[in-house]
């Protein structure tokens, strides 16, 4: 939906006002698309891709994915900020961070490479919590249905927008938040990084959170000339403040528009990937 949103607007901000066509490229949760962008696509600016945010840190956090350098991709910008919180259905009785850490209950997740698992595992490892993570659900809606059925207690990928949209605010307790974004309406919810005492662990937590902090990124293929990249970045920046785009993004409703321009995004990724190897090692262990 995000790629289609961009396709409807970005052409107006590019030289020659091209029509943009969306091509679905399924495969490995963006891994195939990422690989295509690293070598198989033209570098003249005619192809850009909307990849998963996790692709920036996948090689650092999982040795199996260490087959490319994320900085080879040309980052155009990202559309949204990750806003994730751990929520538990009220009937489970887990309403404080203390209970969240010490009681046994079940949290739902999709696959082990998904954000649903990574964030739950991060919270469990960083806090030394006792809960179990149930994997295999078919997305967040499926997890929330299992919450309604009483089979699991909650999950760790709820955003303020989701809670409002799905009428969940009155049915759940929000116990912890991730990342550095505002979490509008839930400012008092403790952040995982604040709950972590050990500074090295905290750094590792921040590194993992960075993977979801800048979501819905757009990239150009590796080898795209600087002037072409600059044109694409300028078009992205202009598009994200365009009223028609902002209105359309609000209508899509799948995310809250919080754009980050390409140069800033690239700097953040570079800084995070240059972290101490010990921190990277802890980060890898935190999401196992």
């Amino acid at each position, binding site marked *: *939906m995000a790629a*289609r949103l961009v396709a*409807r607007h970005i052409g107006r901000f590019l030289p020659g006002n091209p029509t943009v066509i969306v*091509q679905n*490229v*399924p*495969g*490995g*949760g963006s*891994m*195939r698309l990422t*690989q295509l962008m690293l070598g198989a696509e033209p570098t003249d600016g005619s192809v850009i891709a909307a990849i998963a945010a996790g692709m920036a840190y996948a090689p650092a956090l999982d040795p199996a994915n260490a087959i490319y350098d994320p900085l080879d991709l040309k980052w155009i910008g990202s559309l949204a900020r990750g806003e994730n919180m751990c929520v538990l259905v009220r009937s489970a009785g887990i309403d404080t961070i203390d209970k969240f850490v010490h009681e046994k209950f*079940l949290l739902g997740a*999709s*696959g*082990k*490479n998904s954000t649903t698992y990574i964030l739950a595992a991060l919270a469990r490892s960083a806090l030394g919590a006792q809960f*179990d993570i*149930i*994997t*295999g*659900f*078919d*997305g967040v*809606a*499926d997890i*929330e*249905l*299992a919450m*309604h*059925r009483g*089979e*699991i207690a909650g999950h760790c990928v709820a955003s303020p927008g989701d809670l409002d*949209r*799905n*009428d969940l605010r009155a049915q759940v307790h929000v116990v912890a938040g991730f990342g550095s974004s505002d979490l509008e309406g839930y400012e008092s919810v403790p952040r995982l990084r604040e709950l972590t005492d050990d500074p090295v662990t905290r750094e590792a937590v921040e590194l993992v959170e960075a993977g979801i902090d800048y979501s819905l990124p757009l990239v150009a293929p590796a080898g795209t000339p600087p002037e072409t990249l600059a044109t694409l970045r300028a078009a992205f920046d202009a598009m994200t403040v365009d009223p028609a785009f902002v209105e*359309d993004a609000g*209508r*899509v*409703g*799948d995310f809250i528009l919080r754009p980050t321009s390409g140069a800033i995004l690239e700097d953040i990724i570079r800084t995070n990937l240059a972290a101490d190897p010990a921190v990277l090692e802890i980060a890898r262990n935190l999401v196992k």
Partner: protein
Amino acid sequence: VDIILTALAELADPFRMLILISGVLIGLVIGVVPGVNGIMGLAMLIPLTYHLDPYAAFALLLGMASVTNTSDTIPAILLGVPGTVGAVATVVDGHSMAKKGEAARAFGAAYAASMIGGVVGALLLALTIPFMRPLVLYMKTPDFFAVSAFGLSVVAMLAGSQPMKGLAAALLGLLLAFVGIDANAGTHRWTFGQVYLWNGLPIVVVFLGLFGLPELGTLLARGSIQGKAMAVPSYAQMLGGVREALREWSLVIRCSWIGTVLGAVPGVGVAAIDWIAYGHAARRPGKGPPFGQGNIRGVIAPESANNAKEGGSLIPTLAFGVPGSASMAILLGAFMVQGLVPGPDMLGKHASLTASMVFTIALANIIGAGTCLLLTRPLARMASLPAPLIVPLVITFMVIGCYQNNMSVLDFLLFGGIGFLGMAMKELNWPRSAFSLGFVLGPTLERNFFLAYQIHGWEWLAHPLALILLTVAVAGFFRQAQGAARPAGCGAGLPVCQLLVGGCARCLPVGRELPLRGRHLPDDRFISACIAHNVGGSPGFLAMAQGKVARRCPCPGRTGRRMVANGQAGLTGQCQAHDAVRGLCPPCSAGRTSGNRVRLRQRQPARASLCAAAQRVPLRRGGHPFRLHCL
């Protein structure tokens, strides 16, 4: 009543009706093109709904999504190539009918079944609206697993007389369904380092290869779909098909229920629903040719179910925003665009919109089926077109349909590889239907098994609904498998056999399938198997074994007369063989009741299981001696 009247009034607006009809026409076109499905159609249409009001938006989207399973019947019946994965089961009998020059009849029955199925699905949706939330909440993950396992037990029906082959084919399908990254541990299974395989084998490519390519190969060999010149298909034939579907109203209603109920279970897609309905119908084949050889019930059942599914999959979508199918997942985007929140509001302040969805589905099915009926005659004439004209065109669409999945050259390789597998299975008479069911149910079975185990431990087996469904599934499978392995009658629709047995009906109260592969047997062996089976399978068997046949059987000799009257070559010889069985048959050793069951030796011409009374009864027919043995 107010809600219903409001919904009707809103939908009757000329602009919205026009939008609905446009959606239906788009859906019909999408259904006809192999490889292009309703999911793509929804993704393309959603941006068009931004400026429509909710009634018009859902008229367009649901109108489109409701009828792709109506028009996908066209390539399925005519060419043996499913238009969408929801028409794969229709291929089996529908295409066989087209080959016999009965395409118009098959179309008539299919469209009538589609229409009734769609309307029944909409009605069931309407009926469940007041209690859909408790209904959806009642079922837990163990129940979802049990529903899928119950669906898999249908494999015994799909395998007909070859339960072991069916089981093996289903397991092969399951095995291929496991290709990809495992959702639980993130383990790569048979991905061979290919990102292409991470998401598993694409279902469209698998089904187009498994069914489409082998049928096109056969079509080329035949020269045209119906093989020889036949009369131009008429509307009378088509109406005949419609009437047959109406006559089978109870089957249509049952399969509509199957479609709606399973449509509401997340993860059980239309491809699985199709086969489950088909398997249900195969339980009672009724009159006409056997299943797989042009039985009209094999067309009616899946067509009723796949159109009813749309109503069912809306249930969890409306109640909780949990999509019951992939197309519903995309439809959720439309809810967001319209600022709607699935859940209690859909039954409260948006109840008239929900009611309008019910009417949209019902109307779309009526308009879709009506349009297709009008097109039947010209379409059915395609059956007489020469194959060299049709095959390249269809191959082109199939290749495009496959390629648009992943836009990878591996799509072609997989298409060819699965096509080869399909041809081998077809030639060696392995049930592709069983393979398909294993393939489509594999991911759901695995996912729900692991979820149930992780959440409930082994206690999930004690869940009442799961326990009942699993027991029925296991019992049903073994009953069918046993029935197929122990020949006891010819009632499963082997035409010659039925004819022969007809006169001796009172000797054969049990009508079960004769485990012969008629396609591979010359008539004489086939018939002799019927006869020997006839003798061995009757309740008076022991009496016959003791030479009391003449007294017990009320119709001695009549079989022979009928065979001769039928005028088929070699039949007289078979009568004699039959007599020989009765006359020469020594009883099995005392106390060994199991000795009553005999089987032809492997590698001997007939390769079939037979019941007879002898341990060693030498028979000689047509120069092929074979022996019967006690098991």
